[in-house]
């Protein structure tokens, strides 16, 4: 076998044959590390004592062979080839003391470690698959008895829930006037809507009270509400510049008219 120190560029016949054999089923390999591991077996030594230099040469021969046979190798195989070529040259040259990167020996050692680790993983993977397996060697209960879930519902409430519920009940009456008196209220929106439609006809000063809707002048509560909202609506229209408003004296009638464009 090729040993480090021997003329490195001469690749032995066996290496060439090995490379050729590998090429045949390159598709069967799981990447460059896999190929390296396979090649390393031809050295017939423990991975810890493998010659990385020889291995690099074997690999380069493999890639060379692929090129001869015009077999396209995936990029990572070529990257590995380039790296191994670099490693090989580093291993052959005397170490450069000015280089502070990892030494060639360190790089080679790491590659050996990677190979050893991969082989170890393959080993244990095989051991794992050789174990007794469920459904093949041992079996689970065939007639499982389902555990029936018995649902029990409990109800919960807090003191706060209780108090809030009671508060809700007890305060409901206090609010009844609001909802009940809704129909005795003329909202400002309603008054404004009404006033907008009517103001176009008010060329002359007119008492604002004449704008109250029919039927709102009698009942005091309704009258109060309608007066207030109509007055508020008139102020809004003044603000918009649609009408003028005047009151001759305190508590005197309030008059409005359409603003004139003069």
């Amino acid at each position, binding site marked *: 076998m090729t040993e480090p120190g021997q003329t490195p560029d001469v690749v032995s016949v066996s290496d060439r044959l090995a490379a050729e054999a590998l090429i045949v089923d390159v598709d069967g390999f799981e990447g460059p590390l896999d190929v390296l591991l396979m090649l390393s077996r031809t050295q017939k030594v423990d991975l810890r004592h493998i010659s990385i230099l020889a291995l690099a040469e074997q690999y380069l021969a493999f890639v060379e062979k692929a090129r001869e046979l015009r077999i396209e190798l995936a990029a990572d195989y070529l990257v590995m080839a380039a790296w191994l070529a670099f490693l090989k040259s580093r291993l052959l040259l005397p170490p450069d003391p000015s280089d502070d990167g990892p030494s060639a020996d360190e790089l080679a050692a790491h590659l050996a470690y990677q190979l050893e680790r991969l082989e170890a993983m393959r080993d244990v993977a095989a051991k794992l698959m050789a174990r007794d397996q469920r459904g093949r060697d041992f079996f689970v209960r065939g007639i499982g*008895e389902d555990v029936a879930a018995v649902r029990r519902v409990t109800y919960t409430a807090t003191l706060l829930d209780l108090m809030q*519920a009671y*508060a809700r*009940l007890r305060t409901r009456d206090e609010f009844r006037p609001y909802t009940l008196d809704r129909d005795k209220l003329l909202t400002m929106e309603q008054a404004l809507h009404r006033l907008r439609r009517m103001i176009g006809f008010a060329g002359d000063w007119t008492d604002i009270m004449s704008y109250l809707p029919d039927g709102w002048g009698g009942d005091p509560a309704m009258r109060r509400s309608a007066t207030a909202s109509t007055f508020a609506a008139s102020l809004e229209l003044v603000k918009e510049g649609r009408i003028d408003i005047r009151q001759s004296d305190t508590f005197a009638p309030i008059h409005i008219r359409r603003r004139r464009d003069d």
Partner: protein
Amino acid sequence: MTDRPEDDPETGTGAGAETEQSLFEAPPMAEQERMVEAILFASAEPVSLREMTGRMPHGSEPATALAHLRKRYEGRGVQVVRVGEAWAIRTAPDLGFLMTREVVETRKLSRAAIETLAIIAYHQPVTRAEIEEIRGVSVSRGTLDQLLELDWIRFGRRKMTPGRPVTFIVTPNFLDHFGLESARDLPGLKDLRAAGLLDNRPPPGEPEEGEDDDGEASQDDMFGEDRPVPEAPPD
């Protein structure tokens, strides 16, 4: 160990090869018992003796093995039982309760229930008609049943009014659940308002603090005096 038929001049008539083979191969009975055990355990269906025979080594006697196994499981947590023409391992009948798992689901009490409960707590003893009057809607039988079942309310004395209607009162369990020493510890309306639990403000012009005596039945004792808000329930 056992007599070999070849020593017996009587054989070789009909059972022939079969018998011979079984004698060579049949495993010890203890082993056969293990086999029956494993087969019954793993099978998805009850297994007939015929099927066991088919699966066990030649010469096995599953019926005998089964009898041993049955005996072994007597009084155990599981038993070997006959299902029609076949056999299966099943849970001992007295342990069926283990095959259920209680899933406790906690739900919030419905609004109707919590309101009814509140009225009973604040007004007890109170009749159904009175509850309905306060809630303004009828109270369903289910709501009262639920509260009775929770052991939060129970029947009190009958009212001495016409018809002698039953009344409802809260239970010690209710007090326990809500962390109250007695029903009198329930906070009053004023307390609720002070605690910010009444986000609704009374309309202007109505007494803000007042004795909340808007003419509704005799609760003076519930709301008449300031009562401290009870401590949070002890957990």
